[in-house]
């Protein structure tokens, strides 16, 4: 049966068909849907792990105990998982082990544009890169076979365009894989120096062998057309190349690490001009040049952003449609109407505090008019950075807070809080507990008491946890209650040591309620105090302030900041 599938779903389908038994992940755009989809198959055990490092470790354990296993993450998630990854390269696998890693060229939903292929190289791990959904499924199955054949974890590298595009996929049945019996093997699985020294040799031999074998693989395909121009490319970029320069010969690489040098040499020898077209870093180009094969690449194409048919056509032929983009007001993403984070950022801005931010929907608290956030670096950084501020400037803690989401706190905020207490830092940590992992599309997490399948489980008690690690005080407040929230922040800032405020209210998108919406009455003096909330439901027009009832969720913040009582429920009016 043929089906139109999202790239991520195709990876999930491939894993299912390959007989995967265990799937782990921490949600991250654009990789989230792989594990979400796998959780629907009863044959597969799937989990949201607290972070990518744990997800990878569960996956390595599962592989060593004989199950085909997939662990999925976004590119920056691989940084978190890279500690286990680098050594799993040495231990090798038992059941096939695949890391599905999604890069985000153009940063549609990320804090940087790093290239997973470079990490794979540093870790000596082979990489397959599909160019559409059909290949995403096919390469996933192949990745498990290669993993078992060469005794190595395999990275399946996706990019946003492949992960979040839909194209046709032929579905097959699942092939059940028996558990491969686990055998104790201290030399292979205990990576202490004496053993690791030997395994490092095996890792190098394996790479050389793979590079040779990959020359004969069908997924490394030379398509000969013009003798004038030859393009070496891989992944989603292949699709752009075929459309931009249909006459060019193309060497499409399915294995982007290690590279099939013999095949590349042969291809380059048959064309007059050979150009590597790859997004982000000059990974393929650099390795090819190291092997003494003469190619062009980043002298023509940049390292930033995703490519397109137009970009490639223009660079290679000088032709592209001439279009003019209309000059119109931007429409940046915003915190939703009724978002519980709004009250938090409104208050922090009003108090003129420095806000060490973190990764999640609440990063949008940096956008005007709220503009409340000072920094965003990585998952969990808010707490460590607040400690750093305190250690650098003993006065800083009086005007600095860290804000971090519930899921992000569990991911990598807990250790930061331990550090704060252990090293006697003065910090105020605000945990934005909206009962979900919001930005990636509402995944369950350890703090909301539900597993990936929706099954009930132990609900991590954030208050007890913070108290147990030694926080001086832990206060829970409803962020819709602006007065109480401000009072809690003031108290926390005055305290010595680490204070935690849990701002607790579910994400407004989780409450599927129909609202009548608020309205602005004649008492409005057009002072625009409510506009400081940055609520998308409120706008300032020539006839005064208006509330869009299709967006309003009656959160009541605007009523609370209005000094004239001009905002009323539509029922009371």
């Amino acid at each position, binding site marked *: 049966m043929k089906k139109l599938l999202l790239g991520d779903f195709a990876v999930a389908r491939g894993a299912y068909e390959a007989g995967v038994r265990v799937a782990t992940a921490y949600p991250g755009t654009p990789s989230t849907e792989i594990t979400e989809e796998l959780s629907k198959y009863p044959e597969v055990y799937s989990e949201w792990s607290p972070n990518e490092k744990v997800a990878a470790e569960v996956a390595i354990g599962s592989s060593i105990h004989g199950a085909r296993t997939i662990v999925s993450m976004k590119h920056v998630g691989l940084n978190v998982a890279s500690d286990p990854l680098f050594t799993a390269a040495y231990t090798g696998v038992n059941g096939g082990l695949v890391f599905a890693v999604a890069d985000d060229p153009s940063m549609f939903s990320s804090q940087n544009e790093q290239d997973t292929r470079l990490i794979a190289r540093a870790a000596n791990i082979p990489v397959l890169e599909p160019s559409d959904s059909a290949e995403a499924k096919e390469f996933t199955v192949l990745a498990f076979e290669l993993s078992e054949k060469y005794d190595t974890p395999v990275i399946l590298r996706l990019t946003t365009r492949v992960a979040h595009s*839909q194209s046709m996929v032929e579905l097959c049945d699942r092939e059940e894989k028996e558990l491969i019996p686990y055998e104790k093997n201290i030399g292979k699985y205990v990576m202490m120096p004496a053993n690791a020294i030997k395994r490092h040799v095996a890792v190098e031999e394996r790479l050389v062998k793979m590079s040779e074998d990959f020359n004969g693989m069908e997924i490394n395909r030379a398509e000969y057309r013009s003798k004038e121009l030859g393009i070496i490319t891989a992944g989603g970029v292949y699709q752009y190349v075929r459309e931009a320069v249909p006459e060019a010969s193309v060497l499409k690489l399915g294995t982007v690490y290690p590279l099939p040098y013999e095949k590349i040499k042969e291809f380059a020898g048959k064309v007059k001009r050979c150009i590597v077209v790859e997004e982000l870093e000059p990974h393929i180009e650099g390795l090819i040049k190291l092997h003494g094969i003469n190619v062009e690449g980043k002298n023509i194409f940049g390292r930033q952003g995703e490519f397109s048919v137009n970009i490639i056509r223009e660079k290679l032929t000088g032709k592209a449609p001439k279009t003019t983009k209309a000059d*119109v007001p931007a429409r940046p993403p915003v915190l939703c109407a009724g978002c519980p984070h709004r009250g938090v950022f409104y208050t922090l801005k009003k108090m003129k505090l420095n806000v060490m931010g973190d990764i999640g929907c609440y990063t949008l608290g940096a956008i005007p008019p709220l503009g409340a956030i000072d920094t965003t670096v990585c998952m969990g950084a808010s707490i460590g950075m607040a400690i750093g501020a305190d250690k650098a400037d003993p006065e800083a803690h009086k005007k600095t807070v860290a804000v971090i989401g519930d899921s992000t706190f569990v991911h990598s905020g807990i250790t930061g809080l331990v550090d704060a207490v252990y090293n006697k830092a003065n910090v105020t940590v605000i945990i934005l507990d909206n009962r979900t992992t919001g930005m990636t599309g509402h995944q369950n997490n350890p703090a909301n008491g539900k597993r990936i399948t929706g099954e009930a489980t132990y609900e991590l008690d954030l208050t007890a946890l913070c108290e147990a690690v030694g926080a001086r005080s832990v206060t829970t407040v409803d962020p819709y209650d602006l007065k109480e929230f401000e009072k809690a922040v003031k108290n926390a800032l005055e305290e010595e040591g680490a204070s935690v405020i849990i701002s607790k209210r579910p994400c407004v998108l989780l409450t599927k309620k129909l609202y009548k919406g608020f309205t602005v009455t004649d008492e409005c003096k057009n002072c625009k105090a409510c506009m400081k909330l940055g609520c998308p439901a409120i706008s300032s027009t020539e006839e005064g302030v208006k509330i869009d009832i299709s967006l309003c969720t009656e959160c009541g913040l605007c009523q609370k900041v209005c000094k004239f009582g001009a905002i009323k429920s539509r029922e009371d009016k």
Partner: protein
Amino acid sequence: MDILIAGVGGQGTLLASRVLGKYALDNGLDCKLSEVHGMSQRGGSVITFVRIGKDIYSPVIDTGCADMVIAFEKLEALRYAHYLKEDGIMLYSSQEIMPMPVVTGVCKYPTDIEERLPKNKHAVDALKLAEKAGNSKAANSVMLGALTKLMKLDKEKMRKALMESIPQKLSEINEKAFEYGYNA
């Protein structure tokens, strides 16, 4: 046939593109869709690409290449008008949603959008027609109806693709909305 669907995060542009994908599949055509998930969905400007035909490579439509732009919001119509090829069709909803820089008074919502849009344009009051059909969220179906007429697609097959893409309890409202759009 290359169609760009533009809107504001939360308006349901993903459903419209998936219905078109289903329509292509039912007609035995190749199809590629490209979507944006994540941060920009939170009230930001969102686009999805739909490419239907034979031997499609890129899932993305480039500027100056779209046969049609469907915009669920007027300002978004103008923002993506340059994706149209010279004789391409602009189908847009006359609904206006203020972006944050307008809300906060940094800039004004343009009043001359209609004049600046390409010649071959069709406005539909999708929100009003959806409300008339029973729910403002059915604006999606109104736009699909209008698109089916403009692109001379198979009405029955499109209706079927739509019905199979939504929960059954909403089928009556969406069927009406689709019909209003087709006749708009």
